């Protein structure tokens, strides 16, 4: 019986559950044929280029097994880069190389890899080990983004990334994901990164969780999260909002990375964004989603949508959220 009460409470908190997300949002607002635009990071990159949305630069790609043998020449002169499977997800198969030490490639965690290790990793990617359906994949080598100085100490050995859920073009919820020792330089929550819920109205920290447990300070650096504030908040939200026009996906998870010089860059898009963002923020998505759904006339341009999100949706925080739920 206790769990019945629990289910009721989830409902009161406006938590979006997996089944509801799949049927009412992903199923209804994301056309299947559009998935490929975001499931393949290369296609996302092309698309973003056409729409003038900034992303980390692509250095080169690798499609054939036989080229893996000669990859040494290409990597010779490079010390900082990121290897990714084009169709990967959840941080799987991503290798962030932060420097060289003679023969060795040094991961951001400090672990050293030989050229052979890298080659094996690449051939695994090509064979489809990390791709969604186990189908053969392409390796992409991307420039490594450097940590924005304002986040010094918040992220351990990795770049924080920002997850914003965009529903029908309206940013509805945001969180900052901070890499930890556990998450190995990647900021994917289920790998142990810290999720910091952000106030949609201001970009300030609401609260933080790691593996669903709340915490106040970074587990590795000890820095308190309370005074986190994401710079250029409005600009960043506009960037995420424009991804709606770019892809046509109604329910979208956008990953933003903050570059020292260039500011917010789009890292990747997700047609099935996870639900943990609600734990990081401390309240549910449903009231905001329903609110946007109930809008008679949607705003046509990204700036207006962001303005609406900042003023109306951003005000629906915490307890307030349930009161305003239709």
């Amino acid at each position, binding site marked *: 019986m206790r*769990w019945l009460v*629990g*289910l009721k*409470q*989830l*409902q009161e*908190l406006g*938590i979006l*559950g*997996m*089944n*509801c997300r799949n*049927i*009412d949002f992903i199923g209804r607002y994301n056309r299947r044929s559009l998935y490929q635009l975001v499931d393949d990071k290369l296609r996302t990159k092309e698309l973003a280029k056409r729409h003038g949305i900034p992303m980390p630069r692509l250095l080169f790609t690798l499609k054939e*097994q036989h080229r893996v043998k000669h990859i040494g020449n290409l990597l010779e002169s490079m010390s900082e880069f990121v290897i990714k499977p084009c169709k990967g997800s959840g941080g*799987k*198969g991503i290798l962030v190389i932060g420097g060289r030490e003679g023969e060795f490639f040094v991961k951001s965690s400090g672990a050293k890899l030989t050229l*052979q290790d890298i*080659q*094996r990793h690449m*051939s*695994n990617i090509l*064979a*489809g*080990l*990390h791709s969604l359906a186990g189908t053969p994949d392409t390796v992409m080598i991307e420039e490594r983004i450097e940590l924005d100085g304002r986040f010094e100490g918040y992220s351990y050995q990795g770049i924080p990334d920002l997850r914003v859920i965009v529903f029908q073009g309206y940013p509805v919820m945001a969180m900052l994901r901070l890499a930890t020792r556990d998450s190995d330089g990647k900021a994917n929550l*289920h*790998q142990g990164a810290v999720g910091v819920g952000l106030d949609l109205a201001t970009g300030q920290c609401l*609260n933080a*969780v790691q593996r*669903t*447990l*709340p915490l106040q300070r970074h587990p590795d650096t000890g820095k308190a999260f309370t005074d986190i504030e994401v710079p250029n908040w409005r600009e960043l939200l506009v960037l995420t909002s424009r991804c709606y026009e770019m892809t046509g996906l109604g329910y979208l998870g956008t990953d933003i990375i903050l570059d020292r010089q260039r500011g917010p860059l789009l890292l990747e898009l997700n047609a099935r964004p996870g*639900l*943990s963002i*609600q*734990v990081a923020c*401390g*309240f*549910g998505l449903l009231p905001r989603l329903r609110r946007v759904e109930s809008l008679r006339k949607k705003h046509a341009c990204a700036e207006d949508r962001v303005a609406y999100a900042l003023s109306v949706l951003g005000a629906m925080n915490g307890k307030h959220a349930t009161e305003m739920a239709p």
Partner: protein
Amino acid sequence: MTSRKLFHCIVALLILAGIGLGWLRHSRMGIPFLPGTHRPVWLAEARIDFIAQGEPVTVSLDLPDNPPGFSIFSEQAASPGYGFSILDNKGLRRGEWSIRYASGPQTLYYKLQVIPIPRGKTDEGGPPAEIEPIYWNAPEALAAGQLLEKAYAMSSSPESMTRELIKLLNKPEPGQNAALLLGETPLAPLLAKLLNYARIPTRIVLGLRLEDGRRNQQLSPLIEIHDGRHWRQFDPLTGVEGVPDDFLLWHQDGQSLLEVRGASHSTIRFAMMRQSIAATQLPYAVGDRSPLAFLGPQSLPVEEQNMLRMLLILPLGALVVVFMRIMVGVRSSGTFMPILIALSFLQTTLLPGLPSFVAIVALGLLLRGYLSRLNLLLVARIATIVIIVIFIILFSSLLGYQLGFNTGMTVAFFPIIIIAWTIERMSILWEDEGSREVLVQGGGSLLVAVLAYLLMRWPLMVHLSFHFPEINLITVALILMMGNYTGYKLSELRRFRALFPRLGP
């Protein structure tokens, strides 16, 4: 909204069709809802003995025709050297044995298997023929008249008169009249004679009282009177009306029960025995040709039946997977892999199956650890794992055999490719997300597999899914309904527990 409605209609239709067809099958074909139900079958054997005199012999025996309350399941005659055929003369069946030459004592058998069925209306035989005049000698006529007068005075209708007459004749010390009449004629023919004399159309039918293990029985008589509208049956000894449930009507009407030509000293004796048959076999054994039976898997040869049994139980496994994933939120590696594991458990049974599965996967994971150093391409690696798994299975089979467990062999039922993939995925999972995730997903898969196995092995479910294939329509409806469930999974209680006001910070 309309598509919603359509969906609900379809679901409701599927459920109704499932239940309706199942019910039809149950009521029309008598397939029970519970497994292991057996129905009694009576084996009755007529044994005819006679002494042949070295000339052509013809033996003709009246056979039961549609005995009320029973359905003839099989019949056969055993009689070496004799030709046998069943002659059907306007619904009156007679078995006829014939031989050109026979001499000395001879024995013929006729065997009949009948299944009790609900008794329909026993109003056969049509209206009575003209009553033939009855002749008594003088003292008999007097006694009969007095007896009938007495019975008549104490009754109001043909049937009550019959009862009274039976009572009078069966008294412990029958009166002078009764004793006189019974001295001349046996009870049943006497009753018929008396009643016919009183202008109540009466005839005698002969039948077998079915009693398990009885031998050397004779057919016992029942008196049938016509009350103006129906034939009604009375037991000539007790006066109880109606055909007893264990009364197998064998011989009606005027013709003789047994006719033997070309031989002498003929006798007939009956033996009977109660047997039982799985109730599910009945409709097919009896030769039901209705469309329902046509659509039943039992009409197939046994080998195909066994394969179908497997197929028809599969949807239940799918149901378990869907339930565990959507409603409970168990994570498993590979969506339907648990069903395949469960299927192999069906072959191996859980006890050697589960531990050996875990052992094989664990051993494979260990070896896979070395493989990852070899820098192999994925396809080659999986192929290698397949072969490693085959060796593990071979080894454990041999070991099991040498140690004297014949269970060792059963591991060969595991789908090798599935195991290889499981090992590969688990090992990647380990590298990517750590041992905890391996335990969670591996445990989840096994949990789902075991639940699916338990359900697919439950005799009730095995029985229902096979004998009522339409039950899978209900399964489909349930799966469709769950596919539309937008509520929370049970596991989300845990996932979002940090958010609960009382439990959270």
